[in-house]
């Protein structure tokens, strides 16, 4: 089971790594060129795949950027790409047909594609009218009821009412294998409606941020949306095992994800750890947890923030608030020798703050006695606070 978890975590890491590698790193304000293409009649929904000489891709994933039909120039499609990404492949039919790759100069280009092997490149304008302006776009994904067909999006800018598309029901969303319909809409849009069946069924107006968004729509058209990919890989729960000091009553676990700050529990001090036998306590938490604190005595004593690897079971051995060890395999803990009656009582590990005032002996320079107390009290206060509360950086 443990091996399976490891494999899963490694797989997720690998997927995330691959995704990050394929992502575009181009900012919004880079120099861009327009790529026009006239494609064979049996090429539908052409796209452009582009990359820089250093391998940086212009688009997140194959088949690349969708080419828009130029209404003023039938048969011509266009797409803006960063000027640096002059290595280009034109493809269509969801990537099933494509040209060879070829290198464009860093200026607007017109490509006449007779077939996959025959491409004529020109830097002279081959279309009529104004070249369309570059408009940044963001993807909208929608998952709809199975009775919804011909899913479209209607998009506009509220409150001035500028529409992204000429007529209702708007732009057709492309069905993906994932079950999501997807379309890119202009960055200035802040309101959308998902509709289907020729506009007969629809959601209410949805006010959104211009950022990649996933909209889920039920049969009645009631929609919810999120900016976090609902299909992102989910990591299994992990178990946190804890050995806590004997004088920490009712040890609790506080757990969260950094840096996004998502907490597992609604309020401090978190959830009580359960007895796992052999001196260990345990609690299951989501696998995305990467930060924990063990605390006791209703949160009045605690460890520091412990950064841990996500997706791995943990063994946390707390000797005292300042001395904590974290393991990813169950550690061998040597049994402590029984104290004998002749031994002096063990001293608690006093905070190091007691050494602070010694650094500022008054005889060194006639320092005001108040000042000797300040760092000491401040440090003790800090330590007291540190040990008594969750936080701070």
């Amino acid at each position, binding site marked *: 089971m443990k091996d399976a978890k490891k494999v899963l975590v490694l797989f997720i890491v690998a997927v995330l790594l691959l995704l990050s590698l394929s992502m575009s790193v181009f*900012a919004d304000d880079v120099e861009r060129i327009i790529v026009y293409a006239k494609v064979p009649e049996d090429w539908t929904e052409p796209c452009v795949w582009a990359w820089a000489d250093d391998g940086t891709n212009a688009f997140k994933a194959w088949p690349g950027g969708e080419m828009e039909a130029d209404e003023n120039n039938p048969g011509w499609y266009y797409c803006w790409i960063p000027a640096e990404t002059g290595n280009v492949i034109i493809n269509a039919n969801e990537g099933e047909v494509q040209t060879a790759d070829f290198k464009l100069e860093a200026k607007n280009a017109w490509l006449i594609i007779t077939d996959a092997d025959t491409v004529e490149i020109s830097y002279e304008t081959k279309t009529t009218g104004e070249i369309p302006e570059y408009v940044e776009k963001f993807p909208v994904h929608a998952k709809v009821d199975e009775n919804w067909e011909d899913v479209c999006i209607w998009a506009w800018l509220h409150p001035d009412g500028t529409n992204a598309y000429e007529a209702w029901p708007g732009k057709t969303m492309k069905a993906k294998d994932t079950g999501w319909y997807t379309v890119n809409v202009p960055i200035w849009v802040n309101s959308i409606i998902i509709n289907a069946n020729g506009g007969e069924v629809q959601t209410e107006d949805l006010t959104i941020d211009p950022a990649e968004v996933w909209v889920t729509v039920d049969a009645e058209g009631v929609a919810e949306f999120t900016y976090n990919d609902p299909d992102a890989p989910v990591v299994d729960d992990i178990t946190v095992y804890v050995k806590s000091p004997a004088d920490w009553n009712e040890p609790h676990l506080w757990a969260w994800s950094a840096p996004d700050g998502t907490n597992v529990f609604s309020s401090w001090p978190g959830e009580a750890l359960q007895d796992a036998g052999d001196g260990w306590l345990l609690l299951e938490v989501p696998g995305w947890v990467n930060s924990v604190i063990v605390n006791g005595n209703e949160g009045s004593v605690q460890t520091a923030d412990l950064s841990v690897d996500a997706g791995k079971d943990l063994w946390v051995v707390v000797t005292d608030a300042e001395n904590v060890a974290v393991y990813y395999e169950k550690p061998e803990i040597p049994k402590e020798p029984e104290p004998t009656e002749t031994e002096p009582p063990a001293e608690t590990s006093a905070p190091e703050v007691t050494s602070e005032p010694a650094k500022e002996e008054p005889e060194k320079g006639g*320092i005001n006695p108040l000042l000797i107390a300040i760092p000491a009290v401040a440090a*003790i206060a800090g330590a007291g606070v540190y040990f008594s509360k969750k936080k701070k950086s």
Partner: protein
Amino acid sequence: MKRWLAILLIVCLVTTLFVGCSQPEEISDGTVTITIWHDKEEEVAAVLQTELERLEPDIVVKLERKDGLTEALKLVGNDPKAAPDMYFFAHDKLGVYAEMGILAPISDFIDATALEAYLPMTIEAATYKGEIYQLPLYFETLLYMYNRRYMKDDKVPKTTEELYEYMRKTTVGGHYGFVEQHSTAYYSAGWIHAFGGYIINEEGQPGLDSKETIAALEYHKKFVEYMPSEGEYATVNTLFREAKAHSTIGGPWLVPTIRESGIDLGLAPMPVVNETGKAIAPYSGVQGLHVLKVAAGKKHDAIIKVLQQLTGDEVGIAIAKASGCAPAKLSCYDDPDVAKDLMVMSMYETAQNAVPMPNIPEMDVMWTVTENLLVDINMSGKDVTESAKAAQKKALDLIASMK
């Protein structure tokens, strides 16, 4: 015989003392060396160095970057062999050093009328128990920042109620209308000040349970409900940098990384609290030059020249251009480049309401006490008034322990 011997010894001792007092400034080949400790970024240090090189060859200024500057000063600030002659740092520790007796007032070197050309807030920050211990050069305050892709310039909330409504409408699906370090004392102070409350006043009296502070904390809770419960530094800044938050309150030090992230950054005045009519008034930190007593006597004339050199407009303007810091001297804002720098001018505007961070020693204990209070209220859901009273008692106990 013994009597003569005693007289001789006394004469020797007195002579030695006078020799010490009248020791000429450290001259080698006619040059006086002034050592200044600092912890600033390269850009700021380079501006200072260039400006102070104008004093050569009579005076050579050595700028030494010092990690752990504040602790080092506590240890060696009164040791002529180890201490620097001056240091360049924020104002908030000067009360501690003044009490330690290691600082010389800058009014011993500069005519007080010269300081009338500075923003009053910066001189207030430099003053402790009636003495001015710092020559201010620039200051920093928190800023209201927004992502212009999400929040249009004409939709920036002008009041806290507008902000609250904005948060209610836009905090959905993993995006936030506004995020801040809601349970950090430095950030909470702005809200408290807008209600007329305070963390600690000039007399060293904590104000955590004043009705104004309690009102601020109570009012602020409803905003926290629309923020991530984990409101620490990394969370807040990452959310804004990754375009998952529309707006935030943050320091100017974040601006470079935010811009590098591709965020179209907008800066705006702090929202005004509807209930009080006062804008959120964050703490300000004033950076400037301090003179150590160990150098005040023996390098008096050279120190005067160093300070005078830094009272010109050129240095404030140059620092503003180099690193976006807001000059302390008013006339620097007449410079066209400074006047069109959005970040500098936003800080200048915020400075009209900003409160200098307390420079009294007692403040040292207030940070953690206040943050505990904020955690109790914002994260543990405890009663505001009871928590505030408990925190006030804790603060008073700790301050009493100092004395």
